[in-house]
């Protein structure tokens, strides 16, 4: 029997280490390309101030990059250490993009990042510029493969269950690669990274402008950040909408939970701008709604319904019952692989096998589950509605705020009014916002997928390793202490470097 304590602790540890890792990833994605842009200007114009800028932002990039790499190793280890059954069950599919990420992307960025720092005096200007671009391209390709892996957890295409090996196996690599969820998530995530990099450059430069330090460099940095940031902020929101659309095709429960939409509405559904979701009586109070909007976003139509939570739970009951048939046939096939009748039943119901696994929490023998257990398992399909409802609204609100911020910055830069103090204060105060948005986005995507670790295929609690509770408590406490110490050092060093500022152009 699986220890529920181990499940909860392992989930907490994965969530904390992933959220922590994701503090560094977006900045790496954005800043790496901003460095490449700045150095391109240096190589094209030959003006030393752009080299000084590249080196200064590069130092901050380096501190952040080290933390990103360090905390990324944790993620790769953790699938094996804490999610061993998950690794066995879907490693045939999920492992491939992770390995290709190493081969194609991480090797690239990790090899060239060292040359970025140590190659200034050893390479020609164009060669060094190529190194900088390759570092940035490597970082972004890395995100592509990680999100192909993650996209499969959200929308598990191109795979089927193999009775003989008791696991999911790949049937189509093209389907895995061109998974629409993965594509939408990739563009949404890297754009969010570019926004993070741009806000970071904008805010630190605003700090310099307010103090009157390094004004020449700060002004140029702000101009670059404003244009890059505006394009990225628009792209995040547009492509966030695209991932909303793809999610409705495959993750109806996630959308319903984000909207706190308990009942299916007559299409086109209205969008709830504000409200108080109540999980006890399955209702959302004090709603402020925009008619038609949700139906348009989610289905791109006026006549297709967006299904509500209650309907999805009822469908869940049906799928669990169907899954039980698959599970019973599977037990027969394990004993007598040639049983043709069992094979026919299994093939007819295998797409609901994962739903039968939801019962494992309530009964040791899935096939004997009673109505009450099925009902409870179906109710488990509802994720944490208030958390999703609010996380999504704050994230989306911040997304629109960034468009306004960068439009303003772009206007100020074009009108040569970048030294306007109220604008600089707003820019500086915006510094933490992209991180908050990114973390909320992760919560919507991953917490919103619960109770599944792979949507419709494997419930999260079954994915866990057979390790002791004590071991996981030990590692969790270790991570909290170790990561907190590193966070303090990281921020302290960042502030030191910012206070010291860039070297004068004549010195680089």
């Amino acid at each position, binding site marked *: 029997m699986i220890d529920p304590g181990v499940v909860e602790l392992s989930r907490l540890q994965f969530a904390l280490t992933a959220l922590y890792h994701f503090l560094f990833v977006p900045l790496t994605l954005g800043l790496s390309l901003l460095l490449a842009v700045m150095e391109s200007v240096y190589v094209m114009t030959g003006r030393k101030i752009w080299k000084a800028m590249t080196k200064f932002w590069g*130092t901050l990039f*380096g*501190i952040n*990059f*080290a*933390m990103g*790499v*360090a905390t990324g*190793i*944790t993620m*790769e*280890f953790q*699938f*094996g*250490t804490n999610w*061993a*059954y998950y*690794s*066995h069950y879907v*490693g*045939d*599919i999920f*492992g*491939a993009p*992770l*390995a*290709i990420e*190493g*081969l*194609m992307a*991480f*090797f690239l960025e*990790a*090899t060239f*990042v*060292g040359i970025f720092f*140590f*190659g200034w005096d*050893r*390479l020609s200007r164009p060669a060094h510029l190529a190194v900088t671009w390759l570092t940035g391209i490597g970082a972004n390709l890395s995100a592509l493969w990680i999100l192909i892996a993650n996209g499969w957890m959200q929308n598990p295409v191109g795979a089927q269950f*193999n009775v*003989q*090996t*008791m*696991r999911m*196996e*790949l049937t189509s*690599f093209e389907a895995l690669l061109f998974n629409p969820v993965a594509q939408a998530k990739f563009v949404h995530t890297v754009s969010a990274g570019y926004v993070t990099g741009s806000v970071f450059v904008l805010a630190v430069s605003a700090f310099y402008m307010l103090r009157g330090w390094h004004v020449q460099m700060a002004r140029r940095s702000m101009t670059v950040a404003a244009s890059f940031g505006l394009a990225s902020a628009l792209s995040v929101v547009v492509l966030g909408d695209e991932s909303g659309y793809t999610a409705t095709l495959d993750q109806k429960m996630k959308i319903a939970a984000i909207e706190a939409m308990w009942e299916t509405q007559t299409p086109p559904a209205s969008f709830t701008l504000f409200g108080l979701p109540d999980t006890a009586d399955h209702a959302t109070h004090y709603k402020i709604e925009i008619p038609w909007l949700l139906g348009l976003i989610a289905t791109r139509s006026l006549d297709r319904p967006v299904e509500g939570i209650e309907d999805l739970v009822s469908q869940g009951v049906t799928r669990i019952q169907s899954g039980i048939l698959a599970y019973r046939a599977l037990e027969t096939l*394990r004993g007598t692989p040639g049983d043709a009748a069992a094979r026919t039943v299994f093939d007819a119901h295998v797409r609901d096998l994962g739903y039968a696994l939801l019962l494992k929490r309530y009964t040791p023998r899935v096939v004997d589950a009673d109505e009450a257990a099925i009902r409870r398992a179906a109710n488990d399909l509802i994720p944490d509605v208030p958390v999703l409802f609010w996380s999504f609204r704050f994230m989306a609100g911040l997304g629109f705020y960034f468009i306004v911020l960068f439009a303003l910055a772009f206007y100020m830069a074009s009108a040569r009014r970048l030294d306007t103090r109220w604008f600089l204060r707003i820019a500086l105060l915006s510094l933490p916002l992209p991180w908050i948005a990114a973390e909320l986005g992760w919560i919507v995507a991953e917490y919103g997928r619960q109770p599944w670790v792979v949507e419709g295929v494997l419930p999260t609690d079954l994915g866990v*390793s*057979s*390790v002791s509770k004590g071991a996981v408590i*030990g*590692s969790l406490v270790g991570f909290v202490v170790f990561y907190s110490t*590193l966070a303090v*050092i*990281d921020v302290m*060093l960042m502030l*030191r*470097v910012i206070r010291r500022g860039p070297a004068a152009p004549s010195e680089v």
Partner: protein
Amino acid sequence: MMPLDYDILRFLWWALLGILLIGFAVLDGYDLGTAMLLPFVGETDAERRQVRETVEANWEGHQVWLILGGGAAFAAWPPLYAASFSGFYIAMLLVLVTLILRPVGFTFRDKIAEPRWRNSWDWALAISGFVPSLVFGVAFGNLLQGVPFSFDADLRLDYTGGFFGLLNPFALLSGLVSVAMLATQGGTWLALKTDGAVAERATRIASVAGLVAAGLFVLGGMWIAFGIDGYAISGTISHTGPSNPLGKTVVRAQGAWLDVYTIHRLLALAPLLGFAMPLAASLLVARRAHLSAFIASSLGIAGIIATAGISMFPFLLPSSTHPEVSLTVWDSSSSQLTLFIMLIAVLLFLPIVLFYTGWALRVMRGPVRLADVEHSEDRY
């Protein structure tokens, strides 16, 4: 349907896993070795900077061999990845923590010019070199003896060992082989790349470490021949069957790990390299033939890792309590399609990786002299 048969793909992926491990141990091995020796070969702040500058620009890329090795195990041998990482839970987290110290150690150290701060990071880097070297060796020592695990009908792993069970005498010996081997690699590298007092100290350490590595390797071999049991599949096993480790029988016997060398005598080249090359590295470094010493040390690493892999073939992770569920090459792989696609990916990208790794090493070629680093500032 598939251009390559399942058994060939499984064999190739067994070989590739070995190649990735060797790539890691040769390339990142000199980074780990250098880090391990850092506080001992460098006494002043400038000397320590000199030591770090020999690896600082390239170690990050080399580390990816380990990341890729983990990813390849995940993709090609999911049961092996799942069983070893969760079974060796505490040991893996120990390695993880020390691996995390490396990127931050390199980047953070020079940001503050205070001796206590820098000294702490130097020791953190030394630990980040020593602990993974030791633990990887200890892990291999446990693989060779088998570890206690079984599966239920759902193929859920039940691992019944603990952390301290891993620290048995043979495993600790394997750990020391690994530490000595990577100290030789780091020492010969530093002898090659530095000058002055650092090069002198590195030369002395490498010549001792090479002797120790060769000696302990022989001791380990004798232990395998006369001490611990090896494993062998009894009866037949389909090489193209489904990846389910529950359908075979296995026997344990003293010396069974050495049977392969009586069948294929040429394979004895691997243990021969594993013994002779660290020895050669020791002698060569003492005679100031530093490049040859480094190459010999690298070949020694390849020999030692290949010996472990070849001796155990086709076993990947034997079970000491339920030998019949041991993970082997023939019943613990990914599907044929995944192995095939991953092979294409490796054939496509690994040559490119080797090309730019070579280019990056060429950019940073040449010695790191004490005089050059004495006045240079933080470069990260």
